C-alpha cells in the first residue's frame, strides 16, 4: 500500500514572489491524486516541494504504511543533447546503479532495464540516442526510469506532454495498474476526460489550494472555466484557507 502525504501550511516564496501559499491538505494513501490548475499556478512547484526539491516553508510528511518505500519521479522534461551518444538503454542503466557505462553491460541490469522499457513500449528503441527521440518518446523513457525501483509513491509532472496515442495508452494502463495495486500516485495532468475515467482525487491549485475532491465533484461543467482561469480566486466553502491578497499575477 502506498503512503499518504500530509501538507501543513506549505508555502513557497522566492524573493518577493510567492508561488504557493498556505497549502494544507491530506493526500490519501493508495489513491490517484491529480493536481490541476492554470499555468503558472504552482502545480510543478507543489510536486517538487513534496519531493524536497524546493526551499518551501511549512510541513510536508510522507506517512508510509510499513517500512519506508521507494519514490518514482517523472519530471516534466529533461534536456537530452542530440549529439551525445547516450542511448535509451544507457539512460536507464544510469539510473539503476553505479556500475559504470564503460564497463561491459551487466546482464541482470540490462534485463531489468528492458523489462521497464517494455512496460512503456520503448524496448525496441533501446539502442537509439535519447536526443534522437521525439518529446513524447523521451517522456516514456523518463517514465520507465521511475518504475525501476518498483515505487510505492509515484510522482509525475505532465507525463503525457507531447506523447502520441500509443504512449498515452501505455501510460493510462500503467496508472490503472498502479491504482489497482493501491500505490499512491500524484500527477499533474491536463486531460480532463482521462482524469474522469480514473475517477481520481482532484486538487485544484493556483497559488492556493482552491478545491479538493473527487473528479466527479470537482470537474463539473460549470466549474471547468474556473479551473483554468489565471486570476486567483477567493476560495469556496469547501476549502479551509483564508483568501490572500495578490499584488501581481503569477504567470
Amino acid at each position, binding site marked *: 500500500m502506498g503512503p499518504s502525504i500530509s501538507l501543513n501550511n506549505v508555502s513557497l516564496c522566492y524573493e518577493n514572489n510567492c508561488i504557493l501559499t498556505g497549502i494544507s491538505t491530506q493526500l490519501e494513501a493508495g489513491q490517484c491524486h491529480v493536481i490541476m490548475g492554470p499555468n503558472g499556478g504552482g502545480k510543478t512547484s507543489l510536486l517538487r*516541494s513534496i*519531493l*524536497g526539491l524546493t526551499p518551501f516553508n511549512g510541513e*510536508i510528511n*510522507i506517512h*508510509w*504504511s*510499513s517500512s519506508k518505500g521507494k519514490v518514482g519521479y517523472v519530471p516534466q522534461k529533461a534536456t537530452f543533447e542530440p549529439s551525445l551518444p547516450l542511448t535509451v538503454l544507457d539512460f536507464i542503466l544510469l539510473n539503476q546503479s553505479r556500475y559504470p557505462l564503460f564497463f561491459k553491460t551487466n546482464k541482470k541490469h540490462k534485463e531489468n532495464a528492458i523489462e521497464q522499457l517494455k512496460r512503456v513500449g520503448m524496448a525496441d528503441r533501446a539502442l537509439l540516442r535519447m536526443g534522437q527521440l521525439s518529446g513524447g518518446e523521451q517522456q516514456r523513457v523518463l517514465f520507465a526510469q521511475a518504475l525501476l525501483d518498483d515505487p510505492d509513491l509515484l510522482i509525475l509532472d505532465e507525463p503525457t506532454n507531447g506523447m502520441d496515442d500509443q504512449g498515452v495508452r501505455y501510460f493510462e494502463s500503467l496508472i490503472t495498474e498502479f491504482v489497482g495495486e493501491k500505490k499512491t500516485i500524484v500527477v499533474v495532468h491536463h486531460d480532463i476526460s482521462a482524469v474522469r475515467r480514473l475517477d481520481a482525487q482532484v486538487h485544484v491549485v493556483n497559488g492556493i489550494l482552491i478545491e479538493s475532491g473527487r473528479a466527479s465533484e470537482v470537474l463539473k461543467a460549470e466549474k471547468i472555466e474556473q479551473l483554468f482561469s489565471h486570476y486567483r480566486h477567493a476560495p469556496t466553502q469547501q476549502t479551509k484557507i483564508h483568501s490572500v491578497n495578490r499584488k501581481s499575477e503569477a504567470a
Partner: protein
Amino acid sequence: MIIQPVISENSGQEGRWIAFLCVIIVSIGALLLPQNQAPHEHVSVDSHQISISDLSVQRLSMIADLRLAHEEVRALYDDTATWQSITQLAEDWLAPFVQDKSWEHQGRHHWLQIGNGIYQGRSEQSGGGYILNSQHREVDVWLDLNGEATSIEMKNAVLSAQDLVAAGWTQVVFSTKNDIHHRD
C-alpha cells in the same frame, strides 16, 4: 507506520563545505611548501665575485637581458664567425643596447664593443657599469658594484680575469640550477 518528513532544500551547507575545503587546501599547501623549496646552493664565492642570488632586482633584470644578448651574439658567431657590433644589436631591438624606455630606466648605459665579443656598458647616471664577455660558450658577466671600477681598454685580444679584477670589476657567479647553458 513510518512518518518521513520531507526536508526543504536549503543550500546553506554548500558555502560552509567549500570554505572548509579551501581552508584544508591552503593548510596542506602551507604544510608541504617547505618540503619543496628550490635548493639554495651556497656557492662559495671569491672576493672578486658575487653570487647571482645576492643581486638586486634591477641588476638581475640587466643581467637577464645580457644573457639573452649573449645568446644572440653566440648564434651569429657560430654561423658567421663575426661579432655583432653595438649598432647591430641596437638595430635588432636587443635590450640593453636599444635606447628605449627601459634603457632609460636601467640607467642609460652607453655601450662599446671593447674587444672581440666583449661589450662594456657604462651608466650615464650612477657611474656603474657592466661587461659582457661572449668569447666563450658560457656567458661571463662582470659588474661594477660600487661605481668605482675603471673602464677597460683592451691591449691584447684576450681579456683576462686578472685585468678585470685589477680594474675593480666583480664577476657574477651563476648558480648551476640557473641553466646558463643552451637548453638543447
